[in-house]
């Protein structure tokens, strides 16, 4: 169980980022993790040049924010009034793009991305809680609280909420929708780059495997119904915990890969009790 907490923390961060994107920019951002992975992998190219670790992280943050903002700019410029489906479809193209660029630049071999923090924090007998899992969960909570504070207490937050509710109305009020949306994209891109840098390459994987993290992340976000960050955090941590528990049982090795998708499906079945329509009237 404890082994899964690290993964769960990462799922929680991804979930929070996805919820933020969905509420602020009406997008299910499939390229979320791909952007973070690309940024972190690009940043470690600078390790041989003698850049210290904090410098690497800053590079990752800048790259993540920049490429994410670029994608956001494309969507805000050309698809301002499009449906959430059309906007999300564009991030699928983004996912394909960043995944391919990652393969091209870094090859398909696992990358030597070292976690920022490592080692045990506390041990209770056989159960060890690592610093990394705590750090990731704290990161998710800090992100969620910071986002909540900004959204509810600052003038920018009011504008952001106005945009997410009624984009055209907000635009008519003179709010610079594009800058704010691109800003939101940049912020989650940086957050994702930070999370990936934190987590490191715990799964000893290449970009392709890392990018699959979007699926448990989406499961976490879905538990928050793409609206509630707190539930996304709980969902992400619980999902990681369940997966950790199941690792202990080798007999159901095959099932382990299906856990996130099963949770997504069960959640959809539960949430579909009421009929939902494409438009209000």
């Amino acid at each position, binding site marked *: 169980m404890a082994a899964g907490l690290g993964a769960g923390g990462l799922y929680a961060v991804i979930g929070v980022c996805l919820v933020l994107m969905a509420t602020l920019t009406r997008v*299910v951002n*499939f390229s979320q993790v791909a952007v973070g992975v690309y940024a972190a992998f690009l940043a470690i190219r600078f390790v041989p040049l003698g850049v210290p670790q904090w410098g690497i992280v800053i590079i990752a943050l800048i790259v993540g924010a920049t490429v994410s903002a670029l994608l956001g700019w*494309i969507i805000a*410029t*050309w*698809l301002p009034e*499009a449906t*959430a*489906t*059309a906007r*999300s*479809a*564009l991030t*699928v*193209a*983004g*996912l*394909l*793009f960043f*995944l*391919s*660029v990652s*393969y*091209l630049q870094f090859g398909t071999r696992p990358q030597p991305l070292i976690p920022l923090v490592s080692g045990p924090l506390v041990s209770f007998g056989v159960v060890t809680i690592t610093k990394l899992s705590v750090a990731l969960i704290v990161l998710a909570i800090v992100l969620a609280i910071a986002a909540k504070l900004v959204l509810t207490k600052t003038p920018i937050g009011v504008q952001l909420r106005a945009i997410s509710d009624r984009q055209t109305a907000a635009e008519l009020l003179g709010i610079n929708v594009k800058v704010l949306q691109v800003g939101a994209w940049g912020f989650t891109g940086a957050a994702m780059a930070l999370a990936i840098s934190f987590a490191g390459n715990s799964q000893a994987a290449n970009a*392709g495997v890392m990018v*699959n993290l*979007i*699926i448990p992340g*989406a*499961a976490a976000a*879905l538990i928050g119904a793409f609206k509630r960050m707190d539930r996304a955090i709980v969902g992400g941590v619980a999902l990681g915990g369940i997966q950790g528990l199941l690792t202990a049982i080798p007999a159901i*090795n*095959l099932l382990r*890969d*299906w856990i*996130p*998708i099963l949770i*997504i*499906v069960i959640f*959809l*079945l539960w*949430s*579909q009790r009421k*009929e*939902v*329509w*494409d*438009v209000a*009237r």
Partner: protein
Amino acid sequence: MSLVNRSSRTRRVGLPFLIGLIALVVAVGLGFGLPAYTVFISTTVLVSMVALLGLGVVTGTAGMISLMQLTFAAVAAWVAEFLAIRTPLGTMFGSFSFIVIMLISALAAAVLGLLVGLPALRLRGVNLAVVTLGVAAAADATFQKISFPDSWTNVRMPRPFDFATDPAGDRSFFIFTAVITILICLGVYFLQNSRWGSSWKSVAFSERGTASAGTSVRWAKLTAFSVSAFIGGISGVLLVAQISKVNYITFLPISSLALYVLSIVAGAHLIDMALFGGILFVLVPEILKQFKVPLEWGNIVFAILGVQALTTNTNLGEIARTALFRRRRKRLGLGIVEKNLRPLGSGELIPIPVGTGRTLLAVTDLGVSFGAITALQGVSLEVTEGSILGLIGPNGAGKSTFVDALTGFLPQHTGAFVLDGTPLQGMLVHERAQLGLRRTYQQDRVPPTLTVGAFVDFVTVGKADSAGIDEVLEFFGCPTASTPISVVDVGTRRLIEVAANVAARPRLLVLDEPAAGLSHEEHIEFGQRLRLVPDKYGVTIIIIEHDLDLVRSVCSTITVLNFGEVLASGQQDDVLSNPRVLKAYMGETEML
């Protein structure tokens, strides 16, 4: 807007078969004329084309995001290998075993599609994308662990009719693949022009519109997704027979992503464009290989093309077709098609229908609230069979809420509707529509991807034959059945919607502001026709209308709503002269 896949109805059925035959001749020629390696690559092009055709049904026609097309291929390939290598089915039917296995395997993929689609399709499109991506990743991990049956025993997947895997066998297999591909093209073509196809196009445009036309939204999406999975499965079996040994790398999720993006770029619901997409999908990596450029560049190119296609909301196929179509219409001197409501022949005034005296719809104590806001309260009324009831009231009075509750969009309402003795409680929107309760919308809910005739056919669910459809279109002054809706102006589209729903011959039809977008003269002509509808088509009507002239000219009885309650109800003259109605409608000053 798509100008393509114009149905059917007026086109000759033979043409697709002729094209298929020509394609077959070309395929045989290519199969024996091209160099061996080119034939092998061309087979891959056809296999990719089949996968894209399947994807086109979901992404292009039904407008959903599916990111697991190669997972369907992988599942079918796995099942096919298992059946061919590990079970007696591999030889049971002699040379035709392969075809039996192919169909069973594709059905297995379709069942998987059903299982994935059932939970995902209830909600909006993005959910399907999340679920399909998740299933693709999970299946990928599973295939890595269990591997394909050909690697368990090192027995290769046999080809159909014992075609060898040498160049000579490759040629025969290419022709076999071409035959299957042509059959699938024909199947997709006729499906798209069938009522299923109309339901897919309709659901991509408006879910509410689809449900009110009597088709379950979930059914439309599920059929699209399962058909897509089935065709994806066929492509998987063809692929495994072509290369005879596969592993998980053959079906990587990233390739499914690329395939999805490509289907958007090309417009894979168009058959020629699926072929073009298949060529791109195979040729781009092949060219890169020749020039020793890393293959990832191929996906990068697809991604950039995808961004371009998505941001402009077009695809190559539609751009080409729209240009050709415009040019042809311009050459013929055709522009936007408009309605043509000519005065009816007789010229005499048709009396307002008063009905049979029997109650068709009884509404008792209807209440609807949204949170703290009460939209409707204690509304009771009766509609006489064969009459036209006017439902009027100021903006915000609850008229449209009444229609939504009646037609099943607001199941949380209180009170009861009874239609011709049947309580509507608990019935879904499409079930009420099938029972004979139809409505039209204030908004444009007519899918521009259909022709006028295909739309009417879809809405009537087979209740009107070709002649019947032409008759009702003529009666309402609508464009002819073969006209694509995309060249019809919005006011006329609403008239087509009315005509289609009359042609469906429901017991009760609710028209929500049908005359918006008509000129004054057209109002009068429209009213003339409405008065004929109850007798001519056996349809009772509730009409919501702001234009009191129209209401006066067609309604025998009128119900006035104000602030969610019934203000007055009864015979036209009594209601319209009621001082309380005048006050609510005109305001105090008008009374002076």
